[in-house]
């Protein structure tokens, strides 16, 4: 038979290897073209067959913004002590919305791509990762709105340090969302109830970050006790503070130490390191469990 083997298939130099081997999340960098197609597809598919289409990405946060603004800014009057309360709120919402979208769509990502997952071999980490990128794409218009709102205050004096802080905030949410999306996507296949559990906890997120109320309140109520530490250990809290440092604080003349913990940057970098470790753990969990995914996707 060897005479039939064409030169092209002369594979003696290629080692035998398991066909399912992947390098996990790192494949996202190796297979950029596939990732790009997946992101484009999901941007189209997320609102396919809906009349308003992409508009839902803006209607949802807008409605939520006005609800929160009405309740916390006007009814409860929480905004009164906070200058430019609307920007304080909206800056936080950009990241919180990015986070919740990433986790929600990441959790569903394997289930909603089951046609491909069951039939084709590919690094499956790409599904939750693509969901994260799609959510990131949807935050762009919100960032533009936020910038316009800041300019409209006429008192905005942006600084480089602030933009760096906002960027770090984004990176934190990106890492945290990817890690959770990665783990939850497999859990959601193994136990279908998981999606609902995630939904329940995700609904808490907007309330446990300092955007509808100022950071100062948390500090005042809890001092520096255990509750304060637990509250501050949430990476989303840190991220929200960082983006507020970049956008909201620079529109006010409110004293820095009233609105931020004194060690905002140190906390940010420690959080960054912790989240990188979390990503490694998430990848490990994913690799351990994903073998069962194709057979359980029914």
């Amino acid at each position, binding site marked *: 038979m060897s005479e039939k*083997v*064409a030169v092209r298939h*002369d594979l003696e130099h290629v080692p035998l290897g*398991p066909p399912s081997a992947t390098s996990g999340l790192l494949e996202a960098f190796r297979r950029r073209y596939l990732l790009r197609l997946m992101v484009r597809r999901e941007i189209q598919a997320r609102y396919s067959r809906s009349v308003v289409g992409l508009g839902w990405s803006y209607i949802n946060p807008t409605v939520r913004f006005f609800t929160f603004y009405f309740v916390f800014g006007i009814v409860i009057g929480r905004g009164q002590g906070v200058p430019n309360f609307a920007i304080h709120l909206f800056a936080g919402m950009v990241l919180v919305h990015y986070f919740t979208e990433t986790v929600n769509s990441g959790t569903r990502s394997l289930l909603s*791509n089951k046609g491909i997952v069951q039939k084709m071999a590919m690094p499956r980490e790409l599904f939750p990762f693509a969901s994260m990128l799609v959510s990131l794409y949807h935050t762009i218009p919100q960032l533009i709105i936020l910038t316009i709102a800041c300019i409209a205050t006429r008192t905005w004096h942006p600084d480089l340090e602030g933009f760096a802080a906002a960027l770090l905030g984004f990176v934190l949410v990106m890492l945290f969302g990817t890690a959770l999306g990665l783990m939850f996507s497999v859990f959601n296949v193994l136990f279908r109830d998981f999606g609902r559990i995630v939904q329940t906890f995700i609904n808490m997120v907007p309330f446990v970050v300092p955007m509808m109320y100022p950071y100062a309140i948390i500090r005042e109520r809890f001092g520096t006790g255990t509750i304060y530490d637990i509250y501050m250990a949430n990476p989303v809290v840190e991220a929200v503070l960082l983006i507020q440092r970049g956008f909201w604080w620079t529109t006010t003349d409110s004293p820095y130490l009233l609105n931020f913990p004194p060690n905002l940057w140190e906390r940010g970098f420690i959080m960054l390191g912790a989240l990188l470790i979390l990503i490694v753990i998430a990848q490990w969990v994913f690799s351990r469990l994903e073998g069962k995914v194709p057979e359980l996707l029914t």
Partner: protein
Amino acid sequence: MTTSIVVDDVSKEFSLQYHRTLKQMTMAKVRGQAVSDSFWALSGVSFEVEQGESIGLMGLNGSGKSTLLKLICGVMKPDSGKVLTRGRISGLIATGAGFHQQLTGRENIYMNAAILGMTEEETNEKFDDIASFADVGRFMDTPVGNYSSGMFARLGFSVAVHVDCDIFVADEVLAVGDRPFKKKCLARMQEIRESGITMFYVTHAAGSVKKMCDRVIVLESGRVGYDGPVDEGIKFLHYDGSDDEPDAEEMADEEIASDI
């Protein structure tokens, strides 16, 4: 001689879950019923395939053929034992590839080709060939959710056969698709085989196995029941029509196979 596929003492276990909700599961536990059960889809399967060989994988429904293909493609991982392959793998598992219902035929071609490892340039270059082979006409730009099952299968097959691969895996490709398409498929698979690509072909049609393959592996409830030359393999399965009348489908396949 290069080894293309090594399957070494591979086993795969599936679990059957009887109760889906927590309440049902608790009730079953209380009543002492089994909550889940498992069965071995494959147990202790071993064989090696040389580069350029063409294998017909046969066996009754539920004998583990598709599971074996999924392990070879890398969609699933074995629970024990190991599967090793050399080179790029392309092919179809079950009829119809992994397509997205909302995407158009064109978008699905690009997506599928990318998953199979083709670059954008490669796909652009081969797009016309793929489209004309699939022959779905103006449906190319409508969502594949609207396709007939035949068109769906044709498109999937068309992408798979155009990938520049070293191992080609085909799972009952001829189950759907009309006669002219079946003929085209078999002709194309013959080309693939002659170009030195290792072929792994699942079918129930004795006729096409005779034409296409130089070795038959028969699975029986997850074990290798037979591994050897084609004619004996077909006899082993009693697919040579000795103990019952051949059905019309089989006859047609035989005819098509003899056409090419």
